[in-house]
């Protein structure tokens, strides 16, 4: 087998390309360029939370952040409320979003470290509290983002959506940190064998703390952008990103057992998840059929990727 087929990210990209070709061939109504643009815009949100989730999943079995949707909603709600639609407050909003991300990340990790809760349960229980905070501060109001921010979130630079550029920048930063930085080596070492890593002098708890902080900050940024993109924060805006963040990590070729991560695959998987839905929409499939086929295709990709990996 040529070496490129052994890259774990190739399957997500092949699947995305195939779905793209089929959708365009069926005539999606907006042409190849329009579809690619939409995939970049909507895929960016999935990719940002996916890259964060990937860092946590790389820490090994049991590590996953289930508070992503709640963090997204809380950061969007508080940031939009702080800005209150007033022009010139965009940086204040971003600052609030980042603080929310740091806060939820620190709270999650405090529960995991101090109370020794399994991360699944810790982030799940904490997310209920974040959700309440968001409900309490939102009060059903839909504050519009300042106009300049909304324009930025829905706009483009050099024909690439601005949200995709932000996503690419964040991914690039993570990719460099993982592939070139000592922190990345530490993270993967901690994921492969925490005990061995600790004995080798890796500050395992510090590495884990950074990973949990990063996923929360990324989720907060994604929530901030999504609310600006869609004209306001809604209490259920993050809901679909819980499953989405885990799905893109796995389809993207990151090992669920930890210790291996893969940034390019996340983007392939994020495009793929968006394109599958557009393809099924083009077919005129109903919500039920769309959901069933999405599930079957996800499992199909996981089976394909895992058998190829085992025989490679």
């Amino acid at each position, binding site marked *: 087998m040529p070496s490129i087929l052994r890259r774990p990210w190739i399957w997500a990209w092949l699947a995305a390309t195939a779905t793209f070709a089929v959708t365009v061939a069926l005539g999606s109504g907006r042409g190849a360029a329009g579809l690619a643009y939409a995939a970049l815009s909507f895929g960016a949100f999935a990719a940002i939370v996916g890259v964060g989730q990937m860092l946590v999943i790389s820490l090994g079995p049991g590590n*996953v952040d289930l508070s992503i949707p709640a963090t997204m909603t809380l950061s969007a709600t508080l940031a939009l409320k702080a800005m209150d639609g007033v022009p010139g407050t965009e940086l204040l909003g971003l600052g609030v979003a980042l603080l929310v991300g740091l806060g939820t990340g620190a709270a999650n990790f405090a529960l995991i470290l101090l109370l020794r809760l399994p991360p699944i349960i810790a982030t799940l229980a904490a997310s209920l509290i974040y959700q309440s905070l968001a409900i309490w501060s939102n009060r059903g109001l839909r504050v519009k983002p300042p106009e300049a921010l909304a324009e930025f979130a829905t706009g483009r630079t050099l024909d690439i959506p601005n949200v995709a550029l932000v996503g690419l920048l964040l991914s690039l930063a993570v990719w460099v940190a993982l592939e070139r930085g000592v922190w990345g080596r530490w993270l993967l070492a901690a994921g492969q064998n925490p005990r061995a890593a600790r004995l080798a002098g890796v500050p395992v708890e510090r590495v884990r703390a950074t990973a949990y902080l990063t996923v929360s900050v990324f989720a907060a940024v994604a929530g901030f952008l999504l609310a600006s993109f869609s004209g306001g924060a809604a209490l259920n805006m993050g809901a679909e990103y819980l499953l989405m963040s885990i799905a893109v990590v796995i389809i993207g070729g990151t090992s669920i057992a930890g210790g291996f991560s893969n940034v390019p695959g996340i983007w392939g998987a994020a495009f793929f998840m968006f394109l599958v839905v557009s393809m099924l929409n083009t077919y005129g499939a109903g919500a039920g059929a769309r*959901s069933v086929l*999405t599930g079957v295709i996800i499992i199909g990709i996981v089976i394909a990727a895992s058998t190829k990996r085992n025989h490679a």
Partner: protein
Amino acid sequence: MSLFSRYRVLLPIASLTLLMAVTFYVQPRTLSYFGLNLLFNLAVPIALATIAQMLIIMVNDIDLGIGAFVSLTACVTATFLEQSPLMGTVMLVALIIAYALMGAMIHALALPAIVVTLGMSFVWGGLALFLLPSPGGASPTWLREIMTVKPPLIPMALVAACLIAGVTHWLIAHSGIGTVLRGIGGNAEAVRRAGWPLIRLKALAYGLAGLFGVLAGMTLVGLTTSADANIALRYTLLSIAGVILGGGEFIGGKVSPVGAVIGALTLALAASFLSFMRLSPDWQIGAQGAILIAVLAARLLFRRRDGARR
């Protein structure tokens, strides 16, 4: 405190008792047949879903699709089982077999269960949307009657919880096959070398989980009298929390059926308790999270002290 680690079910009992005591103190009228029924009304389907999740966690996997699966079985119950019982039964049995096959596939192809169950959750959810695009359906009369039966002295929900705990405790902790199944969580390789066909055991564990998922969906419809495609989505997280509250662990086949049922009762009670507290609706979900954290923190406090002594 070694008592707590030897009998891992003691701490869940203690936290449930404490929560009940506080509830009775805050609202003395709940200490009655009617009051208890109200408090634990929705505990039965949650307990059954928690048992389903426990069976999966027992073999070192995790099921992120159980909520969608329970929703689907609720939709089947409210449509087919109500209109043509035979067809409905066939469909529910087929769903149990599908769960067993999913377990066999996860084992045979060495797939991560978290992803396969996640993918299947889309499938279950989609099928449920086919059956009931908008909320509706009706509960079969006999099911409604079972769920609203009023046994003397103790409300139905608590009788059912005891029954579920008793049956599953016998199945998991006492029967021979239950011991082997727990062994898979402890050391799958050892079980295989002892001559057990792992793939069939995994299929059995998943099939049993499917059975309890079906029961959860049926009892839920018996209580709510109608269904919709999203009716039980929150059961995925509730069931995981219930297993852990009940003293179970994610790895090693260390689970307790009695504890899991008590964990589910605690979660159901926490929700009822908060509505008695006249807490602002904004904070109800958050307070549930806080209770969850507090109970788990107590559990880990005991364990750490234990570890330090040994």
